């Protein structure tokens, strides 16, 4: 799956940024059927997926890169226990359309870096234009969130041919996932290893060790 032009890279957004907790933690609201032509499939915003968030000035061709590490359902009527007019959505669409649009799915995104795209829409092929870790710039409210394609994921982690000085594969943000105090990040880290393993066959043994290290910290160490 390669990107032929920049427009392709935009693909279909899955939602927009609606809130942030910090420089690296964001909440995005997933489009519901009313806002998009194509409905958003749940696998497009699955737990552990890589996403990019466009910066307002897209001429820079830099995008924030993040991982979906949490989700939340919003229900405005939660807590109001009054009698219901209708018992299912098909009836609700008729009797109370406002109510439906106020319900929302939010996804938690943790920013893990940023990446520049070339004029032709391809991501930068080597270490130039990539940053892993906390990105320099925050995302903005209303910015669109796109799922990352496989080649974009590969590009984000590929830092040039492996050499004496450095290996080809870089996952410098992984310790950030492991050391952060909120719960689901280690599981998200395991999910990203699932995605990287087939992409970097030369590094399968290395990734296995990293996985083993996370699993040990997750499952055995707390029991000791």
């Amino acid at each position, binding site marked *: 799956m390669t990107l032929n032009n920049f427009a392709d890279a935009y693909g279909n957004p899955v939602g927009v940024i609606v809130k942030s907790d910090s420089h690296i933690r964001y909440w995005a609201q997933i489009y519901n059927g009313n806002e998009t032509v194509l409905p958003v499939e749940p696998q497009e915003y699955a737990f552990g997926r890589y996403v990019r968030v466009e910066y307002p000035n897209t001429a820079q061709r830099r995008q924030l890169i993040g991982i979906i590490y949490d989700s939340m359902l919003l229900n405005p009527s939660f807590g109001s226990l009054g009698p219901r007019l209708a018992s299912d959505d098909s009836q609700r669409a008729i009797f109370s359309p406002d109510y439906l649009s106020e319900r929302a799915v939010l996804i938690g995104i943790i920013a893990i870096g940023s990446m520049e795209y070339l004029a032709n829409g391809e991501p930068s092929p080597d270490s130039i234009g990539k940053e*892993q*870790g906390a990105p320099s710039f925050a995302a903005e409210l209303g910015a669109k969130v796109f799922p990352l394609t496989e080649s974009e994921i590969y590009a984000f982690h590929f830092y040039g041919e492996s050499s004496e*000085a*450095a*290996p080809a*594969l*870089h*996952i*410098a*943000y*992984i*310790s950030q996932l492991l050391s952060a105090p909120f719960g689901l990040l280690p599981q998200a880290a395991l999910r990203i290893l699932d995605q990287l393993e087939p992409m970097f066959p030369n*590094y399968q*043994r*290395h990734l*296995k*060790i*990293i996985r*083993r*290290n996370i699993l*040990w910290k997750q499952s055995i160490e707390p029991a000791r």
Partner: protein
Amino acid sequence: MNGMAHKLAGTTKGPGDTPHEFIFISTDPENILKHGEYVWYAIEKNNKTQRVIARITERVDAHGYPDTFLSDPLIAPQDIAAIMGYPREQSTIYEISAAIMGYFDTDVGAFINPWIPPLPGSPVFFADSAMLAEALSRKRQNDIGSAWIGDLLTREPGDAPIIIDMTEITSSHLAVIASTGSGKSYLAGVLIEELMRPYNRASVLIIDPHGEYSTLQELTDLAEFRAAAEQQRTAYQPEVRIFKPAEVKVRLSTLEIGDLRYLLPDMTEKQQYLLEKGFKKMTADPRLKKKWTGRDLIQAISENAGGENERDDTSTVGALEWKIEARFIENTLTFDPVDHLDLRDIFKPGQCSVLPLHELDDRNQQVVAATLLRRAFRARERSVQKKEPTDGDQNLDYPIFILIEEAHHFAPAKADVISLRILKQILAEGRKFGMGIGLISQRPGKLDADVLSQCQTQCIMRIVNEVDQNAVAASVESVGHELLQNLPALSKGQVIISGAAVNTPVLCRVRKRVTKHGGASIDAPMNWVESFNARTAAEQRRNEATSAPPSNTMGIYRKRPTP
């Protein structure tokens, strides 16, 4: 002081486990901050900047990898760290402990502990070889009284020579201790070479129970020495005298009653009593005092015996006579009424004498050593006290140094050996009389503890045996526990030198000898192969001689009739 010119080693973290230790942090990119290496920090003392030298005692990887990173032998943990964003070139940070030795005060000639550890955050520098060569060694190369033993072990050969102070060694004694095969005799050879250099010209005797020092003969014909002598416009060439076993004689009149008792073992009390009485009577005779024979002693004893229990005495005297005869009359190899080693043949400035004792039995070796040590000690004592020679012996007008191989044999722990007493006396008083002793032993545990602790300079090499390690730790105060921990790990030719002859204990690589080493172990398989080949060759020749056709036309050999 130009701070930029010095090589930075790291940054001080804070005090260490003990008051004289501190910890610093370093990435050590060149991998030079090894165990035993030297670093320094600066302090202000009396308006002067002093460099306080410290020795690295421990080095731990402060950023160790999790065990899981080490779980796949095909994958280097640095690579995993690199993938996770930790650059390979800085994958380690070391926390290094260093023991403060002090700054070297040239006026005092010693290290002064400032009792001020470096401040946290302050820089620590790598001590360069020139600085160490100056601070660690007492003397400069080619000084009178200097001995170049080797180089600092942690540096490249030749970078930081270790020069020890021969003045100390020849007055306050030396011990060379190590397990067998660690290079003691080799080091002793180096010491002798240094003692014989034009700037030392020592008077040395080696008591050599194994006869392994004869290769020192090469010293008399070394181009290196000749060149040095020419440079100094002297005609000095060292002399080496290797005594023949037949020359190693003890004049009977130099024996004391204690020696006699020792040489005639298993005497009954009665026999001892009679021996003493007879000996006293004999030596009271001025004619016999200076020259007696075994027969004279026997006669004195039998003349003296008798009295109340005459009958008892005859058998006792008979047994005693038999013992004396066996030791002093039949065994004329060692004991002689007149001949003995001439002190002035043995001891001469610029001469190294070797006394091979390998043809003597244990007791005779001990008595030879004891009588010689005693005579030499008295000779020095009289010379220093400006007294005339007595007992027909000479005085010695210059200091002497005696190296004793297999010292545990002459000064054993828990055994009464005749040479022990005189050795103890020389070790205790030799300094006053210019008489130095060097003891070499592979069994410090079997060496008398007092004797060992009297040696103020110690050369300790590889020691594996725990009893011996403890013996060294107990009697050698100058070496810290931390240095002694290295003993089993030392390789052949590596030595910890400590005590009076160096400024601080130092780990040294013994230099190459200029003469050949005579104590090399025997290569048994090589010898077997050679002697086997020689034998088969001889057999072949014999067979050829008997079966080969005559090679001369004269027909002296007739062809064997074939059966």
